[in-house]
């Protein structure tokens, strides 16, 4: 370390240190994503009374790596009609965007890369960009299945983003700040899942739709669209889409944890000595478990049902709750001081 500090000028040290931290976080995230796929297969297998992956390594623990190596070895196929540039750009964009939002997610007190004042807006902006990856993929592969899947996913994501934002607004009414760290700190006495329980449910339904997961996995409905927007993809580009989907699941669980489950705060103050990230990841795993269990138990919705739920049920409901929350907070004088 001494040698290092003499060799490298001071301003570069910080830069290198930060890069190192980011690289470490990225590697950890990717490993988490890989094991999320393993855990999902194991849980679904348990639900189906099967064994799941159990051949590669102890309890099949090396299965994710075997899958990754298999995908790396395969050939990347370009459809003849495909727009090559966009066809390659789409998975890269999806993958990058799904990891970018982690820059503003705090996993503990001051354990965050960039503690910006509009953190929640940054996450909303990045998640609204994610649609483009899918649309580009569907369009660039110039295949009917691909385009249909992409259009479906785009329509679905815009529809549910509206109610998601309204849910976030109702949380912001309690906290009076857009900063994610302060949102968690505002839950010191009371996690928002208790006063805002109906909104928590709406948020859960919304994130299932937003990540294109079952029971709203219409963009990739195997039975009708083969695989949807990534039907023409193979090898590593396909793996990027796959990883991005699971990274998005983790991101959305992290967001639910921050908004409703008190982030890194322990359930009771006596458990303060346990490191903060432990609680954060425990709560996140709970939501992820819910993701997997819902996939294992729920049938897929039809497309018109999906739209009906989004626009005719969730949107009026969450709008009503925002007004109710605002009114109640104003009546009891509980509105945060920054908002008056």
């Amino acid at each position: 370390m001494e040698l290092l500090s003499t060799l490298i000028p001071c301003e570069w040290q910080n830069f290198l240190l930060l890069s190192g931290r980011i690289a470490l976080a990225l590697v950890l995230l990717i490993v988490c994503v890989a094991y999320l796929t393993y855990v999902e297969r194991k849980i679904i297998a348990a639900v189906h009374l099967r064994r799941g992956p159990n051949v590669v390594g102890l309890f099949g623990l090396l299965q994710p790596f075997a899958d990754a190596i298999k995908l790396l070895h395969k050939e990347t196929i370009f459809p003849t009609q495909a727009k090559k540039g966009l066809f390659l750009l789409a998975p890269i964009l999806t993958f990058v965007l799904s990891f970018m939002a982690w820059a503003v997610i705090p996993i503990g007190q001051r354990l965050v890369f960039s503690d910006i004042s509009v953190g929640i807006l940054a996450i909303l902006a990045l998640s609204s960009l994610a649609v483009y990856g899918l649309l580009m993929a569907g369009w660039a592969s110039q295949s009917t299945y691909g385009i249909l899947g992409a259009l479906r996913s785009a329509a679905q994501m815009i529809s549910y983003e509206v109610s998601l934002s309204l849910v976030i607004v109702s949380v912001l009414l309690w906290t009076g700040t857009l900063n994610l760290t302060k949102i968690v700190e505002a839950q010191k006495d009371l996690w928002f899942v208790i006063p805002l329980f109906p909104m928590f449910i709406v948020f859960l339904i919304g994130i299932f739709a937003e990540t294109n997961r079952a029971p709203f996995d219409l963009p990739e409905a195997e039975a009708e669209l083969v695989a949807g927007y990534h039907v023409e993809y193979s090898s590593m580009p396909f793996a990027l889409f796959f990883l991005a989907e699971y990274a998005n699941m983790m991101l959305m669980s992290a967001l639910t944890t921050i908004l409703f489950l008190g982030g890194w705060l322990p359930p009771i103050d006596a458990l303060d000595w346990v490191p903060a990230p432990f609680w954060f990841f425990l709560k996140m795993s709970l939501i992820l478990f819910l993701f997997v269990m819902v996939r294992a138990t729920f049938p897929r919705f039809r497309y018109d049902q999906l739209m009906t739920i989004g626009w005719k049920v969730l949107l009026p409901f969450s709008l009503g709750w925002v007004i109710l929350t605002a009114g109640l907070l104003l009546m009891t004088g509980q509105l945060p001081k920054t908002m008056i």
Partner: protein
Amino acid sequence: MEFTWGDALFYGMSFVTLCCAMGALLMQNVVHGILCLIGAFFNAAGLFILLNAEFLAFVMIIVYVGAVALLFLFILMTFRIQDNKERQVSFYKKPVFYGGLILLSEMIFFIEGYLQGFRAGFLSESGTGAGNTHLIGRVLYTHYFLPLQLLGVILLVAMIVSIVLLWYEDNRVRKQKIKNQVGVQAKDRLTLHDVLSRKGISF
């Protein structure tokens, strides 16, 4: 004057914004054009961040990139547009050109006026320590409250009009009535009959 990283970023992003805007006009393929437009929006948001207007930057991405451009792309993708090689780059028609000139001069006029108001009014408040998200909210819901509400009404009217224009009743479409489905009882669907041998039944 020293050339800082901020300057480099500013010139870089301005250059990319301009290139993307040109691309949006000149691309042969419409979808590529829209993607260029999105690139321009995105870089403009970057410029906002350089100006410390992070709220505007993210709203720009959420509204323009996440909704407006997305709907453009959505509509263009549902049409089957072939790669049209004959779509020549030609100079725009005269009325359009003059209209553009008028809009440009108006824009310069407004920006001048607005900047002066900005320098006089709101910028002095930023010393209070509140972020600019806070300041925008404060100005929007006090000073500009009436225009804001008016804007809401205009958008509502636009929404109602577009729904009324596009809504039509089609008797062939069969809608799901969840209440009826859930309310079904066994006796609505199933009747039991005693069938006598060699007689049969009629119902």
